[in-house]
């Protein structure tokens, strides 16, 4: 069993302390079961072991020495959790399930026999690739090339049947979805609104950037920056228009969320240190990201390093400054844009709604677009099944969960759906493609960006 570098998080003892609640005060699970209906895997499978309460029970059993962490039960059920954290808002005792899960993943990873120390070749490769910005950028560039050449569609058709084929087909669809349907044609198509025939309502605030906004470091992240740079571009423009001075960091810097979720403790900490160092030199007020998963992880850096005297303060300072782009805009009060008549479905990412509890900001941002009808999906608390690469590691379960979300999204009747996380965009997008739907998937800031662009265009100024 490996001890990590001094934080004690990866040891079973640390897990024991966390679960016992000594470290967290008196917050413990009282077995009430309120988390069960909120859990996507429990909803699909009906097995207590695939519920948050059941997983906590397994963690406690490991901490008490009653259960072998290397055994199939612990490994399977801890692995099967999506990490969506929908259980946290409904828990009366405020059990910190998300961070307990990360500890459990570390224990699970460490406990696997040496020859099986990997979580499967795909995951291990990804973890290694994401540790190196250069390799990551290269890989994502290759992915973009493949995408541009239409290879995903080909791969879909050629993929064999059976579970591996299904996983491959889904992965291909995810890559295809990341390209967006009508990337360059803009919101006019996306929301199927007519071109406004009248000039937009005159706005009383000048169209030029406001003055005096905060200094923002915009982290493009790994997948977001690599496959969704158009979204980061939109974020940058929108922030600037609202008065921020933006320093955009180079793409390829992973926040470590993937590693934390996979239980690669060392990997996650190393990446966190890199991000913290990178930003510290810039002297910014806000660290912004438009990827909800990254925002959630970075807001928790303070916790990751709580027991590390060298980094505790630096991490806490960093985490305090992290905001989702929509939060920054909502705090400033976004400038209104041009009218976009039409409707968009909205599905909040789990890491924005449950983990960060910051999804109100998105509604404020979308409200700055006149004429846009926002249709919330019928079950906004439910995960789309994205959960990083869950769709590839758990094709059947991820597929079933994803199908539910896709049918809810389609049921809104809107021509496109907005969500604020790249993983979700790919998961929902892939599901839509495989279901033969023409719905487009966008990030909320893209809509605001387009609304601003329309404002500029129709008024004649460049």
């Amino acid at each position, binding site marked *: 069993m490996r001890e990590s570098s001094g934080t004690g998080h990866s040891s079973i003892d640390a897990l024991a302390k966390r679960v016992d609640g000594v470290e967290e005060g008196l*917050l413990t699970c009282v077995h009430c079961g309120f988390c069960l209906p909120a859990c996507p895997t429990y909803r699909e499978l009906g097995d207590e072991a695939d519920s948050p309460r059941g997983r906590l029970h397994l963690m406690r059993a490991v901490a008490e020495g009653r259960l072998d962490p290397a055994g*199939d039960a612990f490994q399977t059920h801890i692995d099967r959790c999506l990490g969506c954290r929908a259980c946290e808002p409904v828990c009366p005792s405020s059990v910190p399930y998300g961070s307990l899960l990360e500890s459990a993943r570390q224990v699970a990873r460490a406990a696997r026999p040496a020859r099986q120390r990997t979580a499967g070749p795909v995951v291990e490769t990804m973890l290694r690739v994401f540790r190196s910005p250069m390799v990551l950028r290269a890989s994502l560039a290759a992915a973009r090339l493949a995408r541009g050449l239409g290879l995903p569609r080909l791969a879909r058709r050629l993929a064999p049947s059976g579970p591996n084929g299904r996983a491959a087909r889904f992965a291909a669809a995810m890559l295809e979805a990341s390209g967006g349907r009508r990337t360059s044609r803009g919101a006019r198509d996306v929301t199927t609104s007519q071109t406004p025939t009248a000039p937009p309502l005159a706005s009383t605030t000048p169209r030029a950037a406001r003055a005096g906004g905060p200094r923002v470091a915009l982290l493009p992240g790994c997948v977001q920056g690599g496959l969704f740079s158009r979204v980061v571009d939109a974020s940058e423009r929108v922030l600037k228009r609202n008065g921020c001075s933006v320093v955009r960091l180079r793409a390829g810097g992973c926040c470590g969320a993937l590693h934390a979720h996979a239980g690669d403790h060392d990997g996650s900490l190393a990446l966190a240190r890199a991000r913290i160092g990178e930003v510290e030199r810039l002297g910014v007020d806000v660290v912004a990201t438009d990827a909800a998963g990254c925002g959630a992880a970075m807001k928790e850096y303070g916790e990751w390093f709580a027991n590390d005297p060298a980094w505790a303060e630096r991490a806490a300072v960093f985490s305090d400054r992290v905001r989702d782009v929509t939060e920054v805009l909502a705090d400033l009060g976004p400038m209104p844009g041009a009218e976009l008549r039409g409707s968009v479905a909205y599905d909040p990412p789990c890491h924005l709604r449950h983990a960060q509890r910051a999804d109100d900001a998105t509604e404020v941002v979308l409200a700055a677009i006149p004429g846009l009808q926002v249709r919330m999906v019928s079950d906004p608390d439910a995960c789309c099944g994205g959960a990083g690469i869950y769709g590839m590691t758990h094709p059947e379960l991820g597929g079933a969960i994803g199908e539910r979300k896709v049918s809810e999204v389609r049921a809104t009747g809107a021509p496109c759906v907005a969500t604020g996380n790249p993983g979700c965009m790919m998961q929902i997008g892939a599901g839509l493609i495989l279901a033969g739907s023409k719905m487009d998937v966008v990030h909320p800031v893209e809509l605001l960006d387009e609304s601003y662009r329309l404002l500029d265009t129709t008024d004649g100024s460049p």
Partner: protein
Amino acid sequence: MTSSAHPAAPASPPPRPMDILSPDLARRLRDIVGDGAVVSDPERLLVYETDALGRFHQTPLAVVLPSDTAEAAAVVEAVHEAGLAIVPRGAGTGLSGGAVAAPGSVMLGTARMNRILSFDPDRRRARVQAGVRNSQLAALVRPHGLVYAPDPSSQAACTLGGNVAENSGGPHCLKYGVTRRYVQGLTLIDGAGRIVELGGANRPRGDAPDLLGPIIGSEGCFGLVTEIELGLVPETEGVRTLLGLFETTAEAGEAVTAIISDGLLPAALEIVDRHTISAVEASPFRAGYPTGVGAALVVEFDGNEFELDADADRAEAHCLRAGATEVRRATDDAERLRLWQGRKKAFGTMGRLAPDLMVQDATVPRSVLPEVLRGIDQIAARHELRIANVFHAGDGNLHPNILYDRRDAEVTERVEKAAGEIMKLCVDAGGTITGEHGVGMDKRDYVRLIAGPAERQAMAAVRDAFDPELRWNPGKVLPDEEPVATGSGDMGAPAGASTSGFTPPPSVTGIEVNPPDLSVRAPGDVPWGDVQSAMAADGQWSPIAAARPDLSTAEALHRGLGPLEAMWGPIRESVLGATVIPPDGGRLHLGGRVVKNVAGFDLLGLFVGEGALGRVEEVTLRAYPMPEVMEVLRWLPCDDRSALPGWPHPQVVTADGHAVLLCGTVAWVRHERARLVDLRGTPARHDTGVDALRAFVAAFELDEPFGRAQVERDGAPTVADESGILADVRPGADGDEGGRFAEVVASMRGARWAWDPTLRRGRLSTRPAATGAAPSTPSDSEAGHGTSAPERWSELAEAMAREGGGVAILRGPEGVRRAVRRATHSVDSSASATEAIARRVVAVFGDTLGPTTTSDGEDGP
């Protein structure tokens, strides 16, 4: 009764070598439900070892998750053949250890039986699988303006099957009643693994007692409920929620007594004490309850908008008079929901206050609430313990949860003493040991406080009637009895039994009305009319309907409520307790004096209603505030096209509260095809109902004169002469049942009939042969189609059974009964299973049902 997450938490005993699921059985189970639906790995089974109470731990041999009744029955068969017991489990949210495995048992989980099978908004009912969550049903029906009323705090997670097993309540059961009021039918897998349908006219025979009643609250010991038919209520027009702040819980209790004594019936009355408030306010569910107060009282009224403010004002006055420092009103929906969120999540937030919690669930009569609360404070002070009290004050159902740390052995000892003292205090005050959590494993020994040896033996015997081989959920509810030294075989106390601790209540000599407790006690032999007058003198009323006020109270209890059942539930709901004399003698003290009572198996239903056994020596009845106006309206529809149009739009009228709901409680219609509507309530409410009814009549162009009716108060069809045949007819579920019933009526020339659209039941009474007043006998049946001819009824019974309905002969010659039974059995095999159970239940008390047919299967004549 502890809830804890401590590393030293009790663990399941290690499995013995033979406690491994045999590969044959494992394979067979997997063949039935699929690979993913059988859990047999001991490591995975760990998560099933306990429930929400967390005090008892035992892993089962396996967990099986069937998807429907058929799979469940096949699973049960397989497990029975292997000689193993089965423990049902819903969502594992129980607080009495009821869903904890017995050693060497197989657990059957209902998590995959989570489909809502049918939903009829017009008739306000739904049929669900047992694994459907309470709030899942509530969410489905809400957009239709309907509510599923029982709302336990765990409703987000708990299953309806679990609600049936525990007869769950919730804050709104004060006004709306507990689960039993809403169960109209269910499917049960009995001890022999047979599928049994109960409810409506699915009574095996008219001379058998109600079996549905005892199953509700039987904690999974009588069999597995797989499907349930549930009634729904319309959402009211408005709601008002108040928060009264007090310095002590006792003062809050006094306010509660005052509110009820004044004739108000809020939808909910809940009290939370200072410890609970501090826990809730420290959680994400903070409700804006101010800290620093001793107790908070939540009062909620629902009903018609025009009357809510007056009710709220009266309640506010009572709070202030009882010493409230402040009374707030929720100004909008968001505030109201936040108040309730704080109450419903309260139990969960207590984890913040201490590592361990001794959960209690006692119920006392409302009138003694203040003194019991003071007593509990004294016990807490004496043992130097903190108690967090959160409870359903309106029902007198308390949860004085003791906070402590199990690691401290000395404190633990004090806690266990205090818990016992609190229990005894509540029972001595006229209460009972559990109001809603059930007995399970946790309170088995306390059952001795409220049931003597005879009662416990009767409960065990009735359980055996459902499950002779104790296959279902063994080791729950009833305490172990010491072995009987002599083979007396009767309901005598086991020889050498220690003092049971049960003190029968003192007999009542006259009528005792108890307004603050909303109850009345009376001997069985006094005229029912006298009881009604005594209650009326105190402004109270009981919905038990009797044809004639000169009937004795005991005889009145043999009736049903007729149409009022749709509002007030079956007659069992109106009875709190009774002393009964079973057919073979002896005396049983059943139930108690409190409104919420789930202590032990509920046998009261066997002794009231049609087919009741024995006789009632004295009874404690539930009372309601007397409505100011009670009236039955009638009109005649003008066309014959549809003899029974029913009520197509459930929103036509929203009378509520004391007024009988329209749309379906309209009840029994006389042979001249008049429509009757029973309206009760305040004058304003009454007028609203009349106006809405007028509008309805006009909208459907029913243009006959519409006016007040001179109809007997109860509305149930009387039969002037006691001869002739009286039968319940329930047409099958497809198509227009009212229309179908009309066809039946048309074919029974001269029959008097009544139809209840909500309960989907028709009642027929046919006179004896027109040639004479003498009742038909099989020997002089008319050729072919006389309404007394057994052949006629046989045809009818078969036709109804084929479409999933039934005929139950309530009164009639043996020839007709036999014909109906034979016809029903020929179609419906569940009827024989039900009849076998009924026969055994009745035999427990020394009675028998009439001669049987030859096709009964296991039981002969």
